[in-house]
């Protein structure tokens, strides 16, 4: 079986990459494009570690075949921000001491970023449900909630 050519946009840049028909988007990002920020924690969509944005929406990239992303826009944690130019959520996660083992963090951040895009002023309940697809085993989520709440509040403050 010959490899297929996947054309899509990844982190703002057009990408043309050879993938296997059975590669998931997560496989393609990690193994074919060197974007190892998204993690595989379960492979079945039950942990959220692989969360990326597809056309701005958070998805479990372990459940999408790479070729299903053809023509779509993909954003990974590497495109959200980078050391020295952190996204406000990333900055808040650092300051609030959220990351422990860190494995869930890229997925949580992508879920949180999508939530704030869709709903800039979420209630605590909305944040809790917004990131409930991302399991974290280290933090108990409390500091995540604080960091997301603070970021949303700061964003609201800037707008007003």
């Amino acid at each position, binding site marked *: 079986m010959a490899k297929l050519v996947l054309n899509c946009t990844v982190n703002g840049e057009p990408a043309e990459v050879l993938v*296997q028909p*059975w590669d998931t988007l997560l496989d393609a990002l*990690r*193994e074919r494009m060197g*974007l*190892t*920020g*998204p*993690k*595989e*924690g*379960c*492979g*079945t969509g*039950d*942990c959220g*570690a692989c969360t990326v944005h597809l056309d701005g929406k958070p998805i479990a990239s372990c459940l999408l075949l790479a070729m299903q992303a053809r023509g779509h826009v993909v954003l*990974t*944690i*590497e495109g*959200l*921000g*980078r*050391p*020295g130019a*952190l996204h406000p959520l*990333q900055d808040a*996660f*650092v*300051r*609030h*001491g*959220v*990351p*422990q*083992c*860190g*494995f*869930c*963090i*890229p997925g949580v*951040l992508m879920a949180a970023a999508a939530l704030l895009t869709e709903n800039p002023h979420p209630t605590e309940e909305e*944040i*809790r*449900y917004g*990131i*409930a*697809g*991302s*399991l*974290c*085993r*280290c*933090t*108990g*989520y*409390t*500091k*995540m*909630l604080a960091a997301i709440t603070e970021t949303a509040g700061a964003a609201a403050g800037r707008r007003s």
Partner: protein
Amino acid sequence: MSTVMKTTRDVKGIGLSIPRPDGPEKVTGQVQYVADLSPRGLLHAKLLRSPHAHARILRIDVSRARALPGVRAVLTAADIPELKRKAPTRAHAVLAIDRVVFAGQPVAAVAADEPAIAEEALDLIDVQYEVLPVSADPLEAMKPGAPPVADAGTEADTSEAQAHGSVAGVTTEAKPAKAVNISQQARIQRGDVAKGFAESDVVIEKTYRVPMVHQGYLEPHAVLAQWDTTGFLTLWSSTQGSFNTRSEVADVLELSENRIKVIPMECGGGFGGKIRALCEPITAILARATGRPVRYVMTRREELEAGMPAPQVIIRLKTGVKRDGTLMAIEGEAVLESGAFSGAVLAVSGVFLASLYLWPSFDVKGFEVLTHKPSIAAYRAPVAPQTIFAIDSQMEQLAKAIGVDPVEFRLRHLQREGDKMANGQPWLSNGGAEVLTRLAEHPLWKKRAEWKASSPKGRLRGTGLSLGGWLGGLQPTGATVRLNPDGSVQVLTGQVDIAGTNIALAQIAATAYGIDVDKVRITTGDTDVAPMTGLSAGSKTIYTVGVAVMEAAKDARNQTLEIAAKELEASVHDLEIDNEKVVVRGVPDKGITLAQIGKKGNLYMSKVQPVLGVSHPAFSQQAPAFCAQLAKIEIDPETGEVTLHDFVVVQDVGKAINPLAIEGQMQGGAVQSLGMALTEALVYDDKARLTNPSLLDYRKLTSADLPNIETIIVEKPSPHGPFGARGVGEPPIVPAPAAIANAIEDATGVRLTELPLTSERIALAIASAT
């Protein structure tokens, strides 16, 4: 060792909430875990695992798998000369030889160009099994005539107990004849239990059950192995202890330890499940067979089916009390289901059952029982949450039965420093009473009657609390502290930093040396370069490695001052370090900068020694650490759904080196504890096969299930920890199951004794009670 450092200036060091410096790398996906490594020529490993929990292997045919293009190696036990017939540990059972003893046990291994090809190769391996009867239930497995698990002559494995520094001194008895699956057995007794019950006004007897649960780290086990042409092995591993991994792999492969380098990669959570070697040996063997780098990453299904979970614990307790509140007697029997290999920590249960509270008479037996399930390992405070669930539930019921305040009842009987534990050793300094007292002052506890009375129609509200703890782990360890030519300080250990311990160690070094933490860099070295360092486990990183770092930093400071004394022609006793400069006290313009001293140790032809502080301590004194937790809940009695409204964690940390990191430990531990309390269980069928091998059905709590976790830090200094610090990691996972069970009883009047306290158990118990 606990002397308070007298620095001449307040440096930015211990006691400050400083975010970990690698945070930006963690939040941008830049930190590297094993699965992120793809060296040139990488092969992917997959393991064929037994579908049966107990079977004889009659024949394995790998010829079709070997013929598949892209397959580079297919191995069975016959291809691995080092394998021992009687595997003493799980790590040694690399591939099953002629018998499988749990479902998911590896039978054959494949390395291939792509994971998909490796998986197809597994499909092409033909194994003929003769299915044998299983021991699926520990109580049945204890009986004579039960299907045997271990090969005769296999020794009990107590290394886990040692690794966790739990209490020795519990006498081990010979096992009764023909009870082939009892692998460890112990009994502790004092006084006349029968007399105690006879004189009791209230006797309560209950059996508590806690199922096997998984540590639940988000990163599955992963290892990358590569040999060089001289036969030197490098392992990139997700491990809680690189030196332990090196020792175990060396033992299994019959290799000298200096032929192996273990590079500890970023560890995506361990919680005890990544202490023992698991897939390192087979990955190394595949790499040897192919001459290529081989990466093995377990799937989540494999993790759940064939990881190393916590044991099922079944505790029968009988307790007697007089109407005036006098404790009389406790009789207990704890059965720890260890799965297919021995390795449970038996002593923890005995100590907490018999001597957390002061029982005039006790008789507690402990059994480790083998079954045809994956063998167990540590899980954050091994066996403590399970044991505290039993004893604390029992204390609550005794208090209720005689109508006394449950907090006062616990405090009255709680053993204090100097009281004798069941094993004869005295309790060391601890804050058990302090944390419980502090929690009882919390408004949520004081207002529990109002909360209960405020239940809306169709809902039941309640509050519960519990007290638990951890005795503290110990392990020899080492650290070095260097002064750099630019005056900055460099700390080296082999400590695997999972939770953010490196920043706390850097803070310790900063305060001990007398320099701001911004000027301290700390590195986790691999096993070739780092001083021997213990596990990241057992709540002992700060307690032990912290001492090593503190002593090495003091050593470096003394060396620095001695060099300065010579240079300044002053007495060492008159010197202080102020603002990166050694100055003569009272003569502020007479000084030499740390950079100048550092440079002198690095210049060609210089006669000044470089500053290199070294410490490699061993330890004998534990620091017990206690945690009290409160749950304020609301129950939908028809569906059994529990809503957590508030959860409070009060913990004695001795001295909070980095409060921010400590809060994270308290919150995370509490949520693991709540998962064990409410939803988590590995559920096996009667053939000992796992029925819920996914994170959909193995239910860790999500953010939607939880309230904010309030943390209250209590500081009762430990006599031996660095600056008085105690271990922090284990205590917060201990109390929640009992706190929730107590809250459920407060809300509904129903007492539940089997974890998890699922909506089903709650709803059906309420339905049958009404």
